[in-house]
C-alpha cells in the first residue's frame, strides 16, 4: 500500500505532439493518499483509462513522473510496480480452476504453496467463491468471472494500489449493485488504495471517498461526492453529476450584480473575477422552486420520475429545470421561479467564481 503522486503528468498518443489538442492528458498533478478509495469519473474519451494505464505501467507517459511513496516508478514495468488491475471485461485463465486462477499471481512470484493456500482461501471467503474453487474458471457466469479477476488483484497482500477500469460494464444490473457493495466491503477489509475508473456517476459516488472528475484530459475537480454535488467547480461537473444536471444559464455581470434577461438574480456571494469572457448562473434543479412571484417562465415539459417531477420551463429562450414535489403545473402554464440564494452560483468562463457568504 502506498501513497501515489502524479507530477506534471502529460501524455500524447502522437509521437511529436505540438498542439495542446494532441494530448490525451494535459498536465495532471494529483496526490492519492494511502488506503483511500478514489474514483476517476468522466465521459468516454476524457483520458481516465489513459491515466489508469500510466499508473499501472502499461503505458509510458510522454512527460512527468509517477511516485509511489515518493519513489519514482515512472520507468518501472507493471510487474515491478506491484499493482493490481481489474479490467472492463473479466480476464480469467480459461484452462485453470478458480483456485489456480487466484493462486497464479502468487505462484508467479515464487511464494510457497502453504502460504498460497492460506491467501487463496481467505480471498475466496471474502468474495463468496469458496464453493467453486475446484471448478474450471471458463464455466463461470460473467459476474463470478469478474469476481475472480478482482480476487487475483486482491490476493497479494503487498499491492500498492488496486485499479478498476469500469469493472461492472458487462455485469447484469441486479448483480451490479451486489458487486458494488462487495467492493466497498473489500476496501474496508483490505485497506488497500483503490482507484475506480467509471463514466457512471452512481458507481463513482457510491464507491469513492474522493472523486476525481476529468474532462478532455484535464482534472476539473477533486472532491467528496457531497462537494461535487453542492459546489461544482466547473459547469461541466454540475452538468455531469446529478440527474438531471445543474441548470447553467447564460447571464450578465453588471456593476457587481448578476442579471438574467434583465432580471436581477441574487447569487450566494460576491464574484471573484470581473474579467471573464462569459458568465453563467449555476443552480441545481433541487434548489429551484415554483412560487407566486419571481422569474416569469412558461412550462415546456413535465416529466414524472417517481417521487417527484421534473418541470422544464423556458425563461425567454433559456431552459430551466426544477424538481417539484406534489402538484405540478401543466404544459403551457405561466409560472414564477425562485432560485435558493445560497445554492445559486456564478461561473466565469465555465469555472466557479462566486464565494459563499461567510466563507473565507
Amino acid at each position, binding site marked *: 500500500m502506498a501513497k501515489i503522486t502524479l507530477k506534471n503528468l502529460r501524455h500524447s498518443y502522437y509521437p511529436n505532439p505540438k498542439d495542446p489538442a494532441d494530448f490525451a492528458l494535459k498536465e495532471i498533478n494529483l496526490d492519492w493518499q494511502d488506503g483511500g478509495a478514489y474514483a476517476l469519473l468522466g465521459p468516454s474519451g476524457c483520458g481516465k483509462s489513459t491515466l489508469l494505464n500510466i499508473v499501472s505501467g502499461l503505458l509510458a507517459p510522454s512527460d512527468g513522473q509517477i511516485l509511489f511513496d515518493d519513489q519514482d516508478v515512472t520507468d518501472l514495468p507493471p510487474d515491478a510496480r506491484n499493482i493490481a488491475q481489474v479490467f472492463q*471485461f473479466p*480476464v480469467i485463465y*480459461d484452462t485453470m480452476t478458480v483456485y489456480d486462477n487466484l493462486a497464479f499471481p502468487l505462484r*508467479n512470484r515464487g511464494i510457497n504453496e502453504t502460504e498460497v493456500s492460506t491467501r487463496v482461501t481467505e480471498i475466496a471467503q471474502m468474495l463468496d467463491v469458496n464453493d467453486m474453487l475446484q471448478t474450471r474458471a471458463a464455466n463461470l457466469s460473467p459476474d463470478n468471472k469478474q469476481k475472480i479477476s478482482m480476487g487475483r488483484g486482491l490476493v497479494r497482500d503487498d499491492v500498492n494500489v488496486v485499479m478498476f477500469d469500469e469493472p461492472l460494464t458487462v455485469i447484469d444490473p441486479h448483480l451490479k449493485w451486489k458487486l458494488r457493495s462487495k467492493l466497498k466491503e473489500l476496501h474496508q477489509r483490505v485497506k488497500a488504495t483503490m482507484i475506480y475508473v467509471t463514466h457512471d456517476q452512481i458507481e463513482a459516488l457510491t464507491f469513492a471517498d474522493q472523486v476525481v472528475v476529468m474532462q478532455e484530459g484535464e482534472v476539473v475537480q477533486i472532491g467528496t461526492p457531497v462537494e461535487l454535488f453542492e459546489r461544482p467547480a466547473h459547469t461541466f461537473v454540475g452538468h455531469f453529476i446529478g440527474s438531471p444536471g445543474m441548470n447553467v444559464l447564460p447571464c450578465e455581470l453588471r456593476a457587481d450584480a448578476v442579471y438574467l434577461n434583465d432580471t436581477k438574480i441574487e447569487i450566494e456571494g460576491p464574484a471573484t473575477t470581473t474579467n471573464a469572457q462569459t458568465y453563467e448562473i449555476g443552480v441545481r434543479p433541487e434548489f429551484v422552486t415554483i412560487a407566486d412571484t419571481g422569474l416569469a417562465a412558461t412550462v415546456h415539459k413535465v416529466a414524472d420520475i417517481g417521487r417527484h417531477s421534473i418541470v422544464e420551463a423556458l425563461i425567454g429562450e433559456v431552459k430551466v429545470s426544477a424538481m417539484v414535489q406534489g402538484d405540478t403545473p401543466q404544459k403551457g402554464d405561466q409560472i414564477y421561479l425562485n432560485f435558493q440564494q445560497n445554492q445559486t452560483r456564478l461561473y466565469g468562463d465555465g469555472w466557479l467564481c462566486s464565494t459563499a457568504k461567510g466563507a473565507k
Partner: protein
Amino acid sequence: MKKHNQKAWLFVLPVLILVAFNALIPMMTVVNYSVQETFGDNLFFWEGLGWFEKLLRSDRFHDALGRQFLFTGLILIIEIPLGIAIALSMPRKGFWVPVCLVTMALPMLIPWNVVGAMWNIFTLPDIGLLGYFMNHTLGINYDMTQDPLAAWITIITMDVWHWTSLVVLLAYAGLVSIPDAYYQAAKIDGASNWAVFRYIQIPKMKNVLTIAILLRFMDSFNIYTEPFVLTGGGPGNSTTLLSIDLVKIALGQFDLGPAAAMSLIYFAITLLVSWLFYTLMTKDDLN
C-alpha cells in the same frame, strides 16, 4: 387418434435428392464393386467380403498405410509447431501485417500439380536450383529419383512449404482475437512469456488449431497430386502413399473390386481418425 399432415416431408425432398446424387449413389456404386469380381463385359460375380479380407492381410496395403501415417505424422509434427511459431512472430498491427499475410498466403494459391512440377524441376540434380547446389556446390549426393531418403525429405519439405501457411493464418487469426487486457493482466500478474503462451495463447488458439490439425490431417492423408507429380511413388515404392497405390490398383491394373474395397477402408480410416480427434478436442467444451 389425431391425424397429422405429412405434406411437410416434401420440403425435405430436394435435400434428399441432392445428397443422394452427390454422396449416396456414388458411394453405393463403390460398395457394389467392393463385394464383386468382374472380368469385363459387364459380367459380375459375387465375392462377399473377400476383397476386404485379402486387402487387410496384404503386405502391400500395410506398407502403403504405414507410409501414409508416417507422411501425415511427420508433416503434422513439423507444420503445426512451425505454423504457431511463425504466427507468434508476425506483427499484430501496422504496415507489415498485410505484407506478411499476402506472403504467407502465396504458396497456398499455387495449384497442386504445379507445386509438384516446380519441386521436381527445383530438385533435379543437374539443372534444378536446389539439386545443382546440393550436388555440385556442396558436394552432397542428393537425387530423389535414386535415394528414398532424399525423396522423403523432398516431399515433406514440399508439403511444409505448401501448407504451413494454412496453419499460420489460422493460428494468427486466433492470436489477434485475444483482447489486449489478457496480456496486460498477465503482465500485472507477473506471468512469464512461457506462462502467457501456455495459459493464454494456446487456450485461446485451441479451436482454430483443432480446425488446422483436422484440415491438415485430412488433406495430407488424402494427398495425391503433389507426390504423384514429384516422385510418382518412387524410387521403387518408397513414396507410394495410399492414394497413389489406390490409383495404381484402380486405373493401372483395373482391379475394380480390390480398389473399391480399399477406397472404403481408406475412407473409414480418415473418418475414424477425424472423428476421434475432434471428439477428444471438443470434449471439454461440452460440459
